[in-house]
């Protein structure tokens, strides 16, 4: 199965247990459609041949089963749901990011696979079906038990570890997308001329620049004038 049809298949798998309440868990109760944005397959950002080759290999590798990918998608969606103006995990293509980064990191493979297996086993024990196939309310009961690292119940520790890992991957995956940048309000990564902390921010923090320090700093109105110095190392331009 090629990648596109695999993704389509996963979407329909996500849609299948509608009756079990997944639609509302994915924040799509109204429309019923699973909102799963796709990530690009080709990247170009100054790669060497060896790097491109390695990435191609990673993309071609199938590690997770469809069942596992659905479990990942359901978890990502619970952690960062789509019922938000800036979109959620599925809008930001999280399942595909998690799939890629787990293959890329290598050392995440076992914790994620084993974590899903633990979660399924726990869900079967509690509610008689694996995690993706129990009801939304039942899923949240489980999440409430494993989403808090301060819980000391030894029997839940594998689940707590796994949920923390999935929360890390979901948040890192989301906040490194355009949606995440919008959600955070990130302003950087553009050419600009830094001229210090805004006045109102300084005031808010009760801080100010020491006048002697400020005197030494760059006069941005003269940044384009070619530097020259006198013999005593004083800048004269």
């Amino acid at each position, binding site marked *: 199965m090629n990648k596109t049809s695999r993704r389509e298949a996963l979407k329909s798998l996500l849609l299948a247990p509608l009756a079990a309440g997944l639609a509302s868990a994915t924040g799509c109760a109204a429309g019923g459609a699973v909102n799963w944005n796709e*990530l690009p397959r080709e990247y170009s*950002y*100054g790669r*060497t041949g060896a790097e491109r080759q390695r*990435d191609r290999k*990673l993309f071609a590798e199938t590690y997770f089963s469809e069942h596992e990918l659905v479990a990942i998608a359901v978890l990502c969606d*619970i*952690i*960062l749901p789509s019922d938000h103006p800036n979109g959620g995990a599925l809008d930001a293509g999280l399942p595909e990011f998690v799939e*890629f*980064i787990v293959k*890329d990191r290598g050392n995440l493979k076992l914790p994620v696979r084993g974590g899903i297996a633990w979660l399924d086993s726990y869900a079967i024990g509690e509610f008689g079906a694996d995690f993706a196939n129990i009801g939304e309310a039942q899923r949240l009961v489980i999440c409430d038990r494993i989403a*808090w*690292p*301060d819980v000391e119940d030894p029997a839940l520790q594998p689940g707590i570890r796994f949920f*923390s890992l999935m*929360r*890390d991957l979901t*948040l*890192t*995956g*989301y*906040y*490194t*997308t*355009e949606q*995440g940048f919008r*959600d*955070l*309000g*990130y*302003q*950087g*990564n*553009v*050419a*600009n*001329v*830094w001229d*210090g902390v*805004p006045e109102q*921010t*300084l005031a*808010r*923090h009760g*801080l100010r*620049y020491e006048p002697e*320090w*400020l005197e*030494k*700093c*760059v006069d941005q109105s003269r*940044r*384009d*004038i*070619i*530097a020259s*110095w006198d013999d005593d*190392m004083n*800048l004269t331009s």
Partner: protein
Amino acid sequence: MSAADPYDAIVVGSGAGGGMATWALARAGLRVALVEAGPWYDPADEAQRTQFRYPWESPRRGASTRLRPFGDFNACIGGWELDGEPFTTADDTDFMWWRARMLGGRTNHWGRISLRFGPLDFKRRDSDGLGDNWPIGYEDLKPWYDKVDKLVGVFGTNEGLPNDPDGFFLPPPKPRLHELYYIRSARRAGIPVYPSRLSILTKRINKERGVCVYCRQCSRACGLHADFSSSTVLIYPAVATGRVDVYSNTMVRKVDTGADGRATGVSCIDRENRRELRLNGRTVVLAASACSSARILLNSISARHASGLGNSSGHVGRYLHDSTGASRAAFLPELMDRDIYNEDGVGGMHVYTPWWLEDTQLDFARGYHLEIGGGMNMPSYGFGFAANQYKRFLGERVGGYGNGLRDDIRRFYGSRLSIACRGESVPQYGNYCELDPNVVDEWGIPALRFHYRWTEQEINQARHMQDTMEELLEAAGGVLLGDKPGPEREYGLTRPGEIIHEVGTTRMGDDPATSVTNRFGQLHDADNVFVADAGTFVSQADKNPTWTILALAWRTSEHIVEQMRQRNL
């Protein structure tokens, strides 16, 4: 010119030392072959650009890889582990060997921290009785530092400090918010703090290079050429003279010598087609990095140089030493719920603390400086890990799921202040690299085997670093993160090689029995072979080595030109 005609100079390696040698020699009219093990590189080339990329342009969102250990967008291709190029460490010793494989070498990823060594740094034996003095002093190198400042460009301030000399500085940028917190805490603790000194153009220095646009991405190399990379500042102008041939993707195996023991050229291998190549030269300048240059010399065995070229003293590879390091971070509750604005600034800290306890009695030798980190960095892989861990300090519950996490992310964004210390170690004869008789790389060149152990001096220094960082972070109103490493972890002391300031393997000296080169980087054993990387350092100071490499390499190059003029070479 045919390949058989000798070049005036063959420069091996294109980092700070090799770039400077190539530029200075070509500018003086010499015909130069520049041999670089990696590919040609220009950050302004769209096909190689990583600057101004967004994290989603990478499938791994900027996470590190073996080829880019400092992240997927880092400009430098290289690392501590290279395919086909192993190294080994002797039993019970430790060393991490970083190698860059590209034009410009590791100047493509360095922090641009550009500190002159001070008068005391050249004469440490005089002050603490340990190690050895350099054969030269600050006054010998000062004119070269001056020239480097003006040629390359460095911002900073003249503070009249005794061991952190003034320079021809461009003006520094204003501190960021977390740096203002650091300044306040340093004032409270009575520890000095000054504008940092980085080779980034806050002001134009010529018509060719651009001026900083404050994207904080010097580590991705600047397409405007507004930061110092060897390629950007030295190699392109050198190539423009028309007198330089660049042999990229070419590994030097050994220096060839004639019956008189002098160099005749170098033997190399073309990494792309695995063809052997010989270059003839009147002089050879090794600038492949301290350990790589030592390796080439050790592998240049001949009847006249039975233990390797330049190694009659047995000192090639000896006195290998790296900077010490330790770091700590804190959460600053006052920086919660910040105003969000663009505070990228330059690619590194705007403020720093140089060593301030020169005249204090301590239980370790030498000193260290403090580098300050924090701010509203661009998210990349790892952002959002342990997203709301700081809630613990507020008496709130850590963990959870759902849209509340978005509030946590924003609330704690940019609320971290970190300090990294970089210190001077005491060079040891017993810390060294040598050829491993059992291992070769894929080019058939014997691999290096490292022997390296820290001493009590460095471990005690790390303990002091931890106490200092704790004091400063607490004075900043911070809640310390993680545990303070104790003796069981050598106080968080970094591993040898980890700071990537390894130097000393071909140290300079006036006595050929205890040094490899003379004070001009010229081999005692072969007068037409020079070392222009940090191998010649007698001691590393707590300063970053690049500015001293540049000053020494320029001085060595002028010496070569002068000796050629006098027909001594």
